[in-house]
C-alpha cells in the first residue's frame, strides 16, 4: 500500500492503484484516475459510478450481468464507456476494490 496524490489530495492506494479507503473518493479523484486510464468522464459515466459505489456499499457483488440488468446502462454501452476491461476500470475510477472472480 502506498499514498498517491490525486487532484491535489493524498489518497491510499494498493499496488494496482485501487483506492483502499472508499471514503477518500471524490468526483475530482475519479476524474484524475480516469484521465490516467485515458477516459474523459461524462454524466453517463458518473451514473454508472454511482451505481457501482452503491452496490459495493451494500455488500453486493459486481458482474457484467448485474450492470446489464441495472437499468443504468446495458453491457454494450458499459464496454463503450470503459473500453477494454470495463469492470476493472470502472471500479478503479469508482474508488472501490477490484472485483474478484472466485471459482
Amino acid at each position, binding site marked *: 500500500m502506498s499514498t498517491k496524490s490525486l487532484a491535489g489530495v493524498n489518497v491510499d492506494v494498493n499496488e494496482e492503484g485501487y483506492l483502499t479507503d472508499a471514503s477518500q473518493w471524490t468526483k475530482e479523484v475519479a476524474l484524475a484516475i480516469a484521465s490516467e486510464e485515458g477516459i474523459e468522464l461524462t454524466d453517463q459515466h458518473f451514473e454508472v459510478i454511482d451505481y457501482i459505489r452503491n452496490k459495493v456499499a451494500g455488500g453486493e457483488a459486481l458482474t*457484467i*450481468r448485474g450492470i446489464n440488468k441495472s437499468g443504468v446502462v446495458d*453491457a454494450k454501452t458499459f464496454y463503450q464507456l470503459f*473500453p477494454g*476491461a470495463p469492470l476493472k476500470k470502472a471500479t478503479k475510477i469508482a474508488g472501490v476494490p477490484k472485483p474478484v*472472480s*472466485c*471459482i
Partner: protein
Amino acid sequence: MKKLLILGAGTAGTMMANKLRKKLTRDEWDITIVDQYKTHYYQPGFLFIPFGMYSAQDVIKPKSDFFPIGVNVIYSKIEKIVPAENQVQLAEGVVLNYDYLIIATGTRTAPEETPGLKDKLWYKEIFDFYTIEGAVALNNFFKTWQGGELVVNIAELPYKCPVAPLEFVFFADAFFTERGLRDKVNITYVTPLPGAFTKPRATKMLGELLKSKNINIIPDFNVAEVNNDEKKIVDYAGKEVKFDCLVSVPTNMGDEMIERSNMGDDMNFVPTDKHTLQARDYKNIFVIGDAANLPTSKAGSVAHFASEILEENLMCAIEGRPYTASFDGHANCYIETGYGKGTLIDFNYDTEPLAGSFPFPGVGPFGLLKVTRTNHYGKLIFRWLYWHILLKGKEMPIDSEMQMAGKKL
C-alpha cells in the same frame, strides 16, 4: 414428529439424506427428500462421453439406489418455498411442512441467456457437454468431423466444475492427435477470465500446459451473442472468434424454483453464510452444493466437504447450541490432461492451489500442480468411490478442512 425436508436429490441432497438418517432418530424425526427426476447422473463422467471414453450407460443409475431406508422419497416438481410459513409447495397442490429445510437444488445450464446460442446450429455444430444430451450429441458429431476451428467458450461466471472446459481441450488435443487429424483441428479456448484459471500459480501452470499442447487462449472475452449465419461468437467489446464447431459452457443459474420463491440473487443462487452454510435470511434453512452463492467452486468435491460441516451445524441448530463447524471453501479437483495423465489442485476460500503431494504429505500418491499418471488413475477410481462411498455418506479418506501439510509455498 419433527420434520426435516431436503429439496434436490443430486450429489449434495443424497449425501445429506444418508448422513442425517444415521444421525436423527427415527422415532423423533421424519426425513423427506424431493426431486423431480428419477435418474442420478455421475456428472464428472459427462466430460468423457464426447471422446467415446464413457457411454451414457456409464454415468446413469436410478436415484432410488442411493437413498437410505427410512427416508420418504417424493418425485415431484417443486412449485416454491414459502419460508414465512415453513412450507414447501409441490405440483398439484401438495404441501409439505418442515422444521428444518435443506436446499440442494443445484445449478442448471441456461443457454437461452446468450442470444443465438440455442438457435439453428444447436446440437448440429454448437454443443454443450454439461448435459447428457449435449455430451452424446457431441460424441456423434466428433465421429465424422473432418476438422476446422474448434472453439470452447465459457459464457459467464460462475460455472460448475471450473476445470472441466480445460480438461475438454486437453482431451480434444489428444483425441484428434490419435485420429491423425490434429493438424486440421485448430483448438481455441475463449474465457471471460484473464487467463486459464483464477489463481496465479494454477493459471501459470495450466496456461503453460495449454501452450505446450498448441491450444490458443483468448482471455477477457465476455460473449454477447452467437452469430449462427457467420458462425462466430462476438463479445461486448465487438471482438469476434470464428468457429466450425462451438463447444459452449452456457451460463449457469440456480433452479427456477428459487426465483419463484423469491429467495435467490440475480442468478437464482441462494445467499448463504459461507462458513455456517445457513441461509442468510432464514434461521431454519440451510443450503448446500451448487445452489448456494458461496465464493468457491461449484463442484461435487465442495458439496462433499461442505456436507460434513452441514451435518455438524444442523445438529447444533437442532440442539440449540452455537455452531461448531466452519466451512473453509475447500475444493479438490483432478484435472485430466490427456494421454492417460492428469494433474490435481486443492484449495479453499483463502489459499490458492499450491504444488506438493496429496493427501499424505511428502508421500502422495497424488501430485499437486504436477502432471502424472497416478493423478489420472485417481480420477478414474473416483467414479467407483462416488457411487459406493460418497453418495452413501460414508467416510472418505480426505479431510473436509483443507490441509497445508505437504504443500509448498
